[in-house]
């Protein structure tokens, strides 16, 4: 095999190793962090969980949407979610509408009603004034239709998942809702943030 054909075959594995070292160096603080997404996922994987949880559990919640305000964060979860206590997050827009992200719809606007289908649900309010919340909503709405990618890193603006769109919307306004400074942001990170208050929670709370 000549050198050119060898380069083509081995260049991506070599680049992968270089990038892994660079990213690892940039985030070495996570290596021993037991609350990191990577650690949580690896623990869950060992227990046989790989995704967003057991949807066949039909126990719904009766969370009330009456106290929702634009800018609030809705969380929903099923048992067995591999990346934390909550499986999904959405940003409340008002008028019973929530902005969220799914793999088959990308960043999209839906009704809040389906948050009652989760086994556990939570409403969080970010402790900032309404103008900041409005700007966060405007930023999030501009990302409609963009691609959902499950393992998208926090620091880019072309790949989104349900929690990253919310985190980025507030981060652009100077509000960082991820106290753990992780590579990815799971829905549970919002619950753990000191910059939110819990408005309502059903189905139990994470440790």
């Amino acid at each position, binding site marked *: 095999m000549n050198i050119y054909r060898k380069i083509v075959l081995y260049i991506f594995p070599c*680049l992968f190793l270089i990038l892994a070292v660079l990213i690892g160096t940039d985030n070495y603080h996570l290596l021993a962090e037991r609350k990191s997404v990577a650690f949580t996922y690896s623990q869950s994987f060992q227990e046989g969980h790989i*995704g967003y949880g057991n949807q066949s559990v039909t126990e719904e919640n009766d969370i009330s949407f009456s106290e929702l305000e634009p800018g609030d964060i809705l969380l929903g979860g099923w048992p067995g979610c591999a990346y934390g206590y909550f499986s999904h997050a959405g940003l409340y827009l008002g008028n019973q509408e929530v902005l969220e992200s799914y793999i088959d719809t990308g960043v999209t606007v839906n009704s809040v009603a389906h948050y009652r289908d989760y086994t556990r649900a939570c409403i969080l309010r970010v402790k900032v004034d309404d103008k900041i919340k409005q700007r966060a909503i405007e930023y999030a709405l501009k990302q409609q239709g963009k691609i959902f990618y499950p393992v998208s890193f926090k620091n880019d603006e072309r790949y989104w998942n349900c929690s990253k769109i919310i985190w980025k919307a507030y981060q652009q306004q100077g509000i960082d809702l991820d106290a753990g400074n992780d590579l990815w942001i799971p829905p549970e990170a919002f619950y753990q943030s000191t910059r939110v208050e819990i408005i309502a929670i059903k189905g139990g709370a994470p440790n």
Partner: protein
Amino acid sequence: MLLKGVLQIRNVGRLYIIQLGAVFTVWLASYFKGLDLVFFILYIAFMLMESITNRHKKWLVAFTAALIWQLPGIILTLLIITELNYLMPGGEYYIFAMELWYTPVIPLVSLISTPFLPHPAYYNILLMMPIILSTYYLLGYALPAGCVYFHNKMIRR
């Protein structure tokens, strides 16, 4: 005869190695702004070069190689389109597997944003990706000889 046929499509192994390498590399590259687009260009360049390398083989051999290379995507697409994936264990995650398998082309797909369709454009493009990439691989056969002159010089054919 069968062994000769298998040997002629052994380059499928190279396609899988490049594909898997690109999946992980492009994913990590998305950590750095714009770098994933650079590696996407590298990926499609390498795939075209692999196709050109096999221009001397029969068209059917190339078609078979493209088919085998895209087999994971073809199977996943058929299961998702027919919704048969929901009858299989872990079937709801097949679309995730599909997106991860096509990570090398996701940088280009991510530039397309259509917020007003039932399914966004990227979703439909992902489902068509087996056809798109197979066709792209066969492009190596369609290129005029002059275009592949320098490539052939590099591989000393």
